């Protein structure tokens, strides 16, 4: 096994930073081409008028998840060296809900605000400044928030680990849910 390449010492920090720019270029290009720099499209899902956001997200997740676990099964990538996004149950529930409110209000999220700015949208720059201010407010209030911030930690928790099943069982459920959602979204957008 030789991947993740950085985790196996194939290159150093500075090369990693150059690769960060390159991977970011692809990410930003596809975000813009998907219409995710446009706040009207970004908020459409919340008004059931445009399902671009869930379509892009679900497709991206399915492609990346299938590839990741296929590479893992083929012993081409070492899952033990993959940094799994840690779970903090209640902070992420509350944070997610506040995030959703901010998403609808501003019309952007952190990555799509950058994309919006790149399409010439100056309102996205205002939101970007707001995100920096909100981050600063969190840091200032952190002494009061710390107790909740570290509450209900589940560590590097995955659904297959939590349920004690093979990852392909979770992926099969994901494929089925996605198929139903894609079908419903296409029907809804075409006037039911």
């Amino acid at each position, binding site marked *: 096994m030789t991947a993740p390449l950085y985790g196996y010492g194939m290159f150093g920090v500075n090369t990693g930073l150059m690769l960060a720019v390159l*991977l*970011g270029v692809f990410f930003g290009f596809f975000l813009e081409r998907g*219409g995710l720099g446009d706040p009207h499209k970004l908020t459409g899902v919340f008004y059931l008028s445009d399902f671009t956001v869930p379509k892009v997200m679900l497709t991206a997740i399915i492609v990346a998840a299938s590839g*990741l676990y296929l590479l893992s099964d083929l012993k081409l990538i070492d899952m033990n060296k993959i940094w799994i996004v840690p779970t903090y*149950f209640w902070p992420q529930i509350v944070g997610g809900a506040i995030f959703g409110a*901010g998403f609808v209000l501003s019309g*952007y999220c952190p990555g799509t605000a950058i994309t919006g700015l*790149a399409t010439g949208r100056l309102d996205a720059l205002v939101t970007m400044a707001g995100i920096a201010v909100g981050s600063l407010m969190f840091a200032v209030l952190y002494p009061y928030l710390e107790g909740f911030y570290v509450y209900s930690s589940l560590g590097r928790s995955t659904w297959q680990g939590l349920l004690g099943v093979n990852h392909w069982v979770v992926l099969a459920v994901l494929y089925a849910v996605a198929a139903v959602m894609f079908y419903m979204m296409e029907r809804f957008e075409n006037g039911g």
Partner: protein
Amino acid sequence: MQKSNFWSPYVAGAGIGLTLLATFYIMGWGLAASRAYALVAAVGLKGVSPGYAGSLEYFSGYLKPESPLKDWVLFETMGVLTGALAGALLSGNFRPRFDKPAGMSPGRRLMTATAGGILIGFASRLSRGCTSGVALSGGAQLAVSGWIFVIAMFAGGFIVAALFRRLWS
């Protein structure tokens, strides 16, 4: 309304998925965005008031003694800006404007863009990331974090959209 020249969301989504997969394979972690804002806020505050910035425990993870700006996510977001700019220019989609919901005054839009951003910045720190770092990257790892965040995000968004019916749409 000009005719949209965007790609199919399934094609764009597959492109993002392959980029995310490449990031897992090359780096061992996923794509992210919100960390860059916290980092810029921390470094900015340090420039204005080094003592106060140094006293904030939360920022100690961002203000590394040597070159805090040599950060993977910050470099990645510079790439996002470049790639999105390339996409917008190549497709004739670049146009300086102050975008807002139909019928909203510029002053009110300034308020929603600012307030929404503040909520997003705060919530991203509480959640350990945003739609990129937690929802997309965590979701693709089949991590519990990614999916609970996404469900809560849509719940919060739908509630606000229901309360403010004419905000967008």
